[in-house]
């Protein structure tokens, strides 16, 4: 069973307007790379090098990857990867 990635509205123009896509991936970075192969341009909206952009929050089954292994966070079949653009402060 592949990984499901929930695409935020702001990125859907890059993924053919799909809200959810399925990819295979052993880690978060791996899943993003596979998504990039299918939908070029999405990777640079999410990460630079080995880190997610400051205003991009990535969750694996509701767990923030910054609080586990970051982009190296392992994935297993059936996991849900959620991308949430959010800005702190006001």
């Amino acid at each position, binding site marked *: 069973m592949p990984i499901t990635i929930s695409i*935020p*509205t*702001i*990125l859907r*123009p890059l993924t053919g307007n799909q809200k959810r896509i399925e990819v295979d991936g052993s880690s978060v970075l791996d899943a993003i790379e596979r998504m990039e192969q299918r939908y070029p341009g999405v990777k640079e909206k999410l990460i630079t090098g080995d880190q997610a*952009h*400051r*205003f991009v*929050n990535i*969750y694996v089954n*509701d*767990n*923030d990857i*910054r*609080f*586990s292994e970051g982009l190296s966070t392992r994935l297993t079949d059936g996991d849900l990867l959620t991308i*949430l*653009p*959010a*800005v*702190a*402060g*006001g």
Partner: protein
Amino acid sequence: MSMNQPLTGCVMKGPKNITPDFAPIAASFLYQSQALGIQTSANENCAGDDALCFEFETPRTAPVICEITRWEDPSRQATVSENIMQAACGLMSVHGRTHRQPKPLGLNYISTLTAALALQGSIAASIGRLRGLPVSSSTVSMAAAGLLSMSQYIAGASASESPETAEAAETTETTRSLPGSSPTCPPFVSLDGVIFELETLDTGPWQKFWAELGVGSAAAGKGWRAFLLRYARAAAPLPDELPLAISKLTYHRISQICAKTGMAICPVRSIDDRAQDDDARQIWQQGPWSFSSFSSGPKPNGEYLRPAGALPEDLPLSGFTVIESCRRIQGPLAGHLLALLGATVIRIEPPGGDPLRGMPPMAEGCSARFQALNRLKTVREIDIKSAAGKTEIRELARHADVFLHNWAPGKAVLLNLDYGDLAAINPSLVYAYAGGWATDCAEHVSSNSMPGTDFMAQAYSGVAGKVAGGGSRRGGSLFTVLDVLGGVVAAQGITIALLNRCMNNAGAKVTSSLMSAATLLCAEDFRDIYSLPASGPKPSTSIINEIYATRQGRIAVECPDMDTVLRLAEVLDITAGIENKGFQRCLSEVFPLRTANEWVELFQHAGIPSAVVIEDLADLQTLTHLQSGLTPGSYTQVNSPWRFK
């Protein structure tokens, strides 16, 4: 060169006698006017119970009527009060999200906002007259001010894609999974009872801090999501482990860990604490703005007095150009208000656009909350750190009337885009800084070591302490009290500087901040502490000021005097006197007999101030008496608070 009291020579005439429900508005309005150097006096022509009216006159313009009403609908004369309007506009509901029930804010917030918007309207109208517009009056209602304060939350609650509900904001998977648990949120309490706020805008300090406290990464991660989103949702349901870990350490120890990990910390101070700060009295005396100008250099050439336009719909600032480089809430709200006054606002965003555009809930592909504050602006994507970007900004400023930013302290100097830099190429420019703390200097001020965010400013300024006194547990509000008022104050300052430019042929720099907005909000408290005479009528304390559960919904009821209490008792058929212990019990037993709407209709006929407590912001657009202030669409927009004639 400091420019104290920039509207010296102007006159504001108001009524001699002011009805109790307008008293807090009048007090704030007169305080602000006097801080600007406006001469205030009483005038028989301004008398009336239906509205609070002033006449504003400059040395170069005929008087403009400044009218303040209760509701947008002039036929609706139901008496209101601060708490009634907080209930009716949804503010009690937003503030109450951390309490899981609507709660009054404990501040004369909508009254202060109304006064600020009304003063700004009259100043803008005078600018319009100087530019040839046939404008003779400006009207603002309390209801419009209340709705404006709720703009972002209304947008979130009405967004076409996954609108937010109050319930969703208050709970998380963590709190739902713990039976009997209640949401936990800032401010925090240490082992030795110190109530304090924490702040960081990045995950790094947050991770390190909680790791030092022995909190597991999973809980810290769930806490970060709630903490991150609290500005947007007015709720922060943290996992129990976080406040529990805090409660085991003294404030001193926690401060040490903050210093080590980069987390900012601020105790919740009282107004008395704030009043003792070196800068507090001066800020109170000068009002929430600081004005300065260059005494040397080229003079403006007067082109800014170009006519406003010939169309009936032209607004006072039509044809003026504002360059806005602001993030988040306070600065963008200031730009939005100037756009509502007719200005063309060009918003500078980083290449790729402001990341807030992508923050849910969304409406037609863009964040509804973002659109609530930025929908009227055109956008230029500029890298302000690059040489080409700075050149582009300077060129924009050359032809603009206003340059507004809220960059971190000292950044403008580093970028060579400070007031002096831009005034040299455009002497008529109004340069505005909307900051967190009182200064935009990079010089160290104790408060400058903390992020200048709303909740930190609430804690430091005494506002959070005052909210605690109003019954909100530990104090503070996760409703962005100071961001909204700070945005209004920043827009006011710009409008004042534009009028000063018209009168004195001089550009100016105007600085305002969340801290100075806090001083405005608590102006009467500072006046009492400094033992200074009142500028207007002193608001009185109501005899009854409560929220009651009914058969359907909740109702806010306020009785400012015994006559109103007696009318209430008559309508409810209660024979016990208010001094009787059973009176409140009788009220609690009677109200469930009818719905909140039914009670409000009865009370309106009896002249008893009341309102249905709005708990779902999406309901606002269904209310007849508020519909003129809202525009439905892919999200509900809050309309301009001003009406000019």
